[in-house]
């Protein structure tokens, strides 16, 4: 073993440690029967929220561009992986192997979409990039809603109109049914696989950030012109960050989809709302701070969940109803307050004054 771990390696080890300890704690809770049903329902969502937040942070924090189409890549990953699972349901009966292949397919196809969308989009920056990624996210959602795929003895049939125009034999089965999406998905996702996926995501992102390529990506964020002038291929590195992020979002989507029985693309799950929710996690955890993106979704959801249960116990139905109906309102306020608090120059000055005072008193 090396005598001294570098500071970075230590920091990364802490991040992995948090995930593993969290996993063990949850296992302990459920083994001793202390797990509430609402919490156990949140375990797999935690995993995909963390994967999505970490992957978005790669674009927002490390590359320094705002992507509002993250849910679109999640959608691609979800649909392509579930499509595979449905096709192979009777061929591969081992659910773990089937799910692993489905995850890889979801990730690869989402990453391909990331490259295809990234090539035109990454020539832009700032506000333009944000709005174009938003547009792409919406286009993907629209396309999935008019997509019909069926299978019969003659192979696959595609249509963009309706399930009747697939022109299938009577024994044919409609797999993707437009706005109804895909039904009867085997529930292949488990918490353990979810945690392993979180660790893989963290490994990929942390390795990337600390590598030569990662430093090139960060140099583009800090000063694009300076990076260009020392010979960094801006398009290549932007595309790298963007497509890795898209692929990881695809994994998140695949995990999400295999936790459901029916998958359809609605504004709620793959629309702009989802992209914003992930952005809230990234902002709350700290832009560019990967560990923050692991902690923020869990803490935010646990706090909200705790509040909801507290209100339920107190019988305060008004507040309970209010909070469960207006989760996004809470998120919006969190987003604005955190941004003002952490980025406004006046707040930064004020914080420095207060904390310096403390530091001085301690010294």
């Amino acid at each position, binding site marked *: 073993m090396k005598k001294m771990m570098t500071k970075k390696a230590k920091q990364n080890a802490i991040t992995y440690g948090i995930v593993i300890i969290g996993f063990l704690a949850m296992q302990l809770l459920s083994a001793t029967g202390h797990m509430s049903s609402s919490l156990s329902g949140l375990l797999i969502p935690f995993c995909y929220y963390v994967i999505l937040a970490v992957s978005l942070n790669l674009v927002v924090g490390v590359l*320094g561009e*705002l992507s509002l189409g993250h849910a679109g890549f999640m959608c691609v990953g979800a649909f392509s992986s579930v499509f595979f699972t449905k096709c192979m349901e009777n061929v591969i009966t081992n659910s773990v192997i089937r799910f692993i292949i489905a995850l890889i397919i979801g990730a690869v196809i989402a990453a391909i979409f990331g490259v295809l969308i990234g090539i*035109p989009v990454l020539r832009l920056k700032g506000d333009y990039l944000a*709005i174009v990624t938003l547009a792409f996210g919406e286009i993907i959602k629209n396309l999935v809603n008019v997509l019909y795929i069926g299978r019969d003895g003659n192979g696959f049939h595609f249509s963009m109109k309706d399930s009747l125009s697939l022109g299938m034999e009577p024994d044919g089965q409609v797999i993707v049914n437009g706005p109804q999406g895909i039904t009867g998905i085997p529930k292949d996702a488990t918490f353990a696989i979810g945690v392993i996926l979180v660790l893989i995501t963290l490994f990929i992102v942390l390795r990337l950030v600390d590598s030569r390529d990662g430093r090139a990506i960060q140099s583009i964020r800090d000063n694009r012109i300076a990076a260009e002038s020392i010979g960094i291929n801006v398009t290549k590195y932007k595309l790298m960050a963007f497509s890795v992020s898209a692929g990881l979002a695809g994994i998140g989507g695949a995990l999400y989809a295999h936790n459901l029985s029916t998958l359809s693309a609605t504004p709620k799950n793959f629309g702009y709302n989802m992209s*914003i929710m992930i952005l809230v996690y990234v902002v709350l955890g700290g832009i560019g701070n990967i560990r923050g993106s692991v902690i923020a979704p869990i803490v935010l959801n646990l706090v909200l969940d705790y509040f909801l249960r507290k209100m339920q116990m107190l019988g305060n139905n008004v507040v309970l109803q209010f909070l469960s109906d207006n989760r996004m309102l809470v*998120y919006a*306020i969190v*987003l604005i307050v955190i941004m*003002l608090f952490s980025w*406004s120059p006046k707040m930064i000055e004020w914080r420095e004054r207060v904390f310096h005072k403390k530091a001085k008193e301690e010294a």
Partner: protein
Amino acid sequence: MSFLNYLISGISLGSVYAIIALGYTMVYGIAKMLNFAHGDVIMVGAYVVFYSTAAGMPAIPAVLLSVVICTVLGMAIEAVAYRPLRSAASPLAVLITAIGVSYLLQNLALLFWSSNTKSFTSVVKIPALKVAGLNISGETIVTIAACILIVVGLTLFINKTKPGQAMLAVSEDKGAAQLMGINVNATIALTFAIGSGLAAIAGVLLCSAYPSLTPYTGSMPGIKAFVAAVFGGIGSIPGAMIGGILLGIIEIFGKAYISSQMADAIVFAVLIVVLLVKPTGLLGKQIQEKV
């Protein structure tokens, strides 16, 4: 429906986009930020008119009330959420906050006015015009007239008045404008006020033509109007008008001749093509990046 009918409804929808796009383009030109919440100000404006006319207020005072409320709202948003971040280190900071404000407005609307679709009664009482077999509705006439009036009025305001000249100066160079004795904060606040007032008018016109009103009514037209502003060249007032009208025509034609479900995708495809072929838009200026 014939080709000409589609064209007219395209121009009518495009005029609404143009009015919204003016708000975007002015704010973008001066504050160099994308005001994501602009679309939601439209929605607030429409709700104010909906409730005040439902309470028995005549149309014109209701629209004026809505303009006043939206103006105040726009200035409040600017002062609370955007001004503190204007000199933030990261350009993403103000953009993310703007998204937060947009979200806040939508969810507050959901809270106060519920997600039920309100059926908006048109405020326009002009009878439809029949010309050579074409049926042009009163809403269309008013929308197009309002758009032309607003564009002419704004152009005159910016070129002939002192506050307008101050806006131009601030959009050219904030620091130099300040040295010339221009109150930069007040000028930006004025820009937000005008943009939000226009958003109220756009909201009323939009809902008069397409009468279903929900808390999400504003967000799609808002994004499309930004596309229009980029199409016409961001920062340019005639550009916003041309971009808006062209986009409206493209959308209606796309709906009529290609696919009604894919109309939004077509509009966004336009944005992507414009940004790739001519990123400055039709009438925009080329801005050199300083090292």
